């Protein structure tokens, strides 16, 4: 294309010569060029506008087609199922190992008011105040006559209350269905069940969500509408749990303890058949969590058997003995020198009441609960192998027990596991664990040396984990535990016919700011029964117990935790289906007579 210059020199000169205004030439050329540009622009815009027009036509057609498809698909989605389905209401039940109900749902109603619909707000407020004495009449009147359009009055009301409100007869008082979680057994197994509360709330329904315990741990399963008719089965036995809570409560009162806990666990399956932590609460009316600044262990919500992480004392001695036997360093008859003085660094290792047992067998070290004896065993084992062994018993991690609180029970172990730690941990100081950890460790000894992880779910058959010690070591450890009861510190633990074996532990409670209390202890009795063929582990822990016996104030586990545990075993063993049996090899204790 040839472009005409805006000011062609020839014409300009010509114009100048004629005395005309040369700008006019430029103006004309600009106009011509504009005309050309305009034509070109319109040609291009024509195409593009056509594209736009087609685009809009197509887009509108698509919208129309989609409308048509949607309008003709009416039958596929019925309206009835559409409203209110957002909040799933059917929460699965929870049952015990025998199928007895632990948690279920209960239909109640919520009460709300819509003042714009009210006929007589003042009368409605007065009527409500009569039905619910806890409501403030003045405030209701203020709410009903004010600007508010929607007021929740009660989240849950009983059928009787509902009828009474209905009888007030005001159309502005309305009810919404509310499914609530009901624990028919009240306080029973409160810490395991946890509790439930309302999540999202609407007028038509409210979401029930678990707030603690298995309710929270298995919230996803329980809430899944597909599991509405598939209850969650726990390993708990309702009757055993009831007996345990009753006996433990009595024991706690007699022993003047401020708290108590007990765990009863099947040594082969890891099933926790009963577990109690006192003081307890009612999951139907779960108390508020304690304010910060208070000791959480003072709240009834505190779960002592998984969250109560303490140095548990001499109950740990059996692990040192069992490992020493397992490693072939000693057997139960090997003689150990327990005489003092014994020093690790500058720390003297002493015995209870400054006793001196002299040279005694490994079994007697356990029977007499000799600190120096286990300390020397531990020194032979060495810190590496000790850590590895305790680790394999799950002592360094929170228990895998399936309630949400269990994750909070992180054991405390020394940062620097030196020789001193090796010795003190061998007799249960310096390593803080929960009673549930201890039950797991004793279960390994009881079942012949295999780790089982504690579980709250019902299992089918034994659930052995990896082997942690030899059959022989476990067998010898069981023999020592039995001897502790027959002739040692736990002599109150004898239950005729059930061959209880166990180990006591009395540990001074640590002060919150360091150091230990002189007069506050955690007394623990960790037992297995029947010792010749153990089926169950029972760990009983009392918090700050004391009892006056023989004119003396006594705190040791042998005087406090052991009698409670013995009573417990006597009560629950028959419920567990264990028949009283004579121990093998004790034939001399009785004579057969003919009738």
């Amino acid at each position, binding site marked *: 294309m040839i472009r005409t210059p805006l000011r062609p020199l020839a014409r300009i000169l010509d114009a100048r010569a004629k005395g005309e205004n040369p700008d006019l030439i430029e*103006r*004309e050329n600009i106009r011509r060029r*504009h005309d050309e540009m305009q034509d070109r622009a*319109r040609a291009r815009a024509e195409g593009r506008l056509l594209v736009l*027009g087609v685009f809009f036509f197509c887009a509108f057609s698509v919208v*129309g087609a989609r*409308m048509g498809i949607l*309008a003709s698909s009416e039958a596929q989605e019925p309206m009835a199922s559409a409203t209110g389905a957002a909040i799933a209401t059917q929460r699965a039940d929870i049952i015990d190992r025998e199928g007895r109900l632990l948690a279920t749902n209960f239909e109640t109603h919520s009460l709300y008011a819509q003042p714009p619909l009210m006929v007589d707000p003042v009368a409605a407020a007065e009527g409500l105040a009569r039905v619910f004495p806890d409501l403030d009449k003045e405030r209701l009147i203020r709410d009903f006559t004010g600007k508010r359009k929607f007021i929740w009055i009660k989240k849950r009301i009983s059928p009787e209350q509902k009828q009474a409100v209905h009888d007030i007869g005001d159309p502005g008082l309305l009810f919404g269905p509310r499914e609530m979680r009901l624990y028919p057994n009240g306080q029973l197994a409160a810490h395991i069940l946890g509790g439930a509360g309302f999540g999202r709330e609407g007028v038509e329904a409210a979401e029930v969500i678990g707030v603690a315990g298995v309710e929270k741990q298995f919230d996803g399963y329980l809430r899944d509408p597909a599991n509405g008719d598939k209850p969650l089965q726990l390993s708990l036995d309702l009757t055993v749990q009831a007996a345990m809570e009753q006996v433990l409560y009595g024991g706690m009162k007699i022993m003047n303890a401020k708290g108590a806990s007990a765990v009863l666990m099947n040594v082969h399956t890891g099933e926790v058949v009963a577990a109690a932590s006192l003081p307890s609460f009612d999951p139907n009316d779960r108390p508020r969590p304690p304010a910060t600044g208070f000791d959480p262990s003072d709240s009834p919500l505190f779960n002592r058997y998984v969250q109560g992480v303490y140095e548990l004392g001499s109950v740990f001695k059996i692990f040192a003995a069992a490992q020493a036997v397992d490693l072939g360093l000693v057997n139960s008859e090997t003689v150990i020198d327990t005489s003092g003085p014994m020093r690790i660094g500058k720390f003297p290792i002493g015995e209870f009441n400054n006793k001196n047992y002299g040279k005694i067998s490994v079994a007697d070290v356990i029977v007499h609960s000799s600190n120096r004896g286990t300390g020397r065993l531990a020194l032979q084992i060495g810190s590496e192998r000790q850590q590895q062994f305790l680790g394999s018993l799950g002592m360094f991690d929170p228990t895998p027990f399936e309630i949400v609180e269990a994750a909070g029970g992180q054991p405390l172990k020394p940062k620097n596991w030196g020789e001193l730690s090796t010795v003190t941990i061998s007799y249960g100081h310096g390593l803080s664990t929960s009673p549930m950890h201890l039950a797991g460790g004793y279960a390994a000894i009881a079942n012949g040396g295999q780790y089982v992880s504690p579980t709250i779910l019902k299992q089918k058959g034994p659930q052995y984990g990896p082997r942690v010690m030899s059959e022989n070591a476990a067998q010898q450890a069981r023999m020592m535990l039995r001897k502790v009861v027959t002739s040692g510190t736990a002599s109150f633990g004898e239950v005729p016919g059930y061959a209880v074996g166990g180990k006591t532990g009395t540990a001074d409670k640590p002060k919150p700011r360091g150091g230990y209390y002189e007069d506050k202890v955690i007394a623990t009795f960790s037992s297995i029964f029947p010792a010749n063929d153990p089926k169950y582990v029972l760990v009983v822990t009392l918090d700050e117990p004391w009892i006056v016996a023989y004119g003396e104030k006594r705190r040791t586990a042998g005087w406090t935790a052991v009698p409670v545990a013995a009573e417990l075993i006597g009560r629950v063993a028959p419920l567990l289906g264990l028949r009283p049996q004579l121990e093998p090899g004790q034939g001399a204790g009785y004579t057969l007579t003919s009738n």
Partner: protein
Amino acid sequence: MPPADKEAGTIGAFAVLCPQIRREPGTKTPNRGANEAANGSGVMTDMVYGAVPERGGEPILPKWWRTLDKWSMSCVLILFGIGLLLGLAASPPLAARNGFDPFHYVQRQAFFGGLAIVAMLLTSMMSPTLVRRLAVLGFLGAFVSLALLPVFGTDFGKGAVRWYSLGFASVQPSEFLKPGFMVVAAWLFAAAQEINGPPGRLWSFSLCMAIVLMLVMQPDFGQACLVLFGWGVMYFVAGAPMLLLVVMAGVVVLGGMVAYSNSEHFARRIDGFLNPDVDPTTQLGYATNAIREGGLFGVGVGEGQVKWSLPDAHTDFIIAVAAEEYGLVLVLIIIALYASIVVRSLLRLMRERDMFIRLAGTGLACTFGVQAMINMGVAVRLLPAKGMTLPFVSYGGSSLIAGGIAVGMLLCFTRSRPQGELGDLLRGRG
């Protein structure tokens, strides 16, 4: 309209040479009367000697009626009628909630609708130059009031400061800003096309970005998208290079992703859209169900249920009310009305030679169409949820009047006017 203004000077110079000077409509050229009556040289003689008083061209009304796109205007009036009809169905629940008598909002709609129609008619009678001048002034006013929104605006508890409360009514400046911006941007584009013209593209782009930023800050992503879309369409028609268009599409996608990750408001809506099964208790769920309930002929006048459950039944989801009560038939009619307004306007603009008119008309028609399309696309879940009103059908005082002005401008720009074909023939360019 710079070309016309410039030409006014040249016409004087060439009028003697060529009586059939290209005449831009609405410009007062000295020999206007001569052009109108170019076939009778006797009249010209009379004029020269002052025997016949000079007439300012054809009378306004007849000329308006002759050149108007009557089909489009009929479509707009029908849409307004449908809006009133649907208002009768959709607004009583809202009136009941707010304690007014049932047809309170219908009365308001009729009142504002009347104003809007008057505004539309008046605007469409103006000359493009006058429209441009008024629109630029209006744009300045709207721009300033948009900028002052954070100071004086209210959010009516909806979480976005978009309105001025005037007591009896509320005004959303962005509604008025949109048509004004289209005109200003088209003016700048057209000026940029001139030889020795200003860098109008850059100016209009900066203006567009400023407005989009202000709207995003409110936040009002819907209006921001509309403004951006309108500008983009104008740029496209003004001859944007293809490569740039591709790049811009990429930028839009990127911006969307940034908005998605930074704005919860935005992300929630996109998530709701991408989720294949619609939650029946959300607005979209109700709307979908309403359309399904309606079927081909609807559940019957006054029988609809969706208006009771949807808070925005009278604005954003009015199409759902239409679908439920009157069925697919009415919905298709509404779609056809919008489509014919947009497509007819675009086709008419294809003939238009004046760049400003072409661009401004395109921008107005496309924003109008796209707004309707987005509104309905959301209801059928073709597009993510976006609060956007259905022009002329949804309830809303200021949006109605702004819509009336915008459509009035569009009708003004699509009026048939001589495109200089005769001049081409005479000058041998045709």
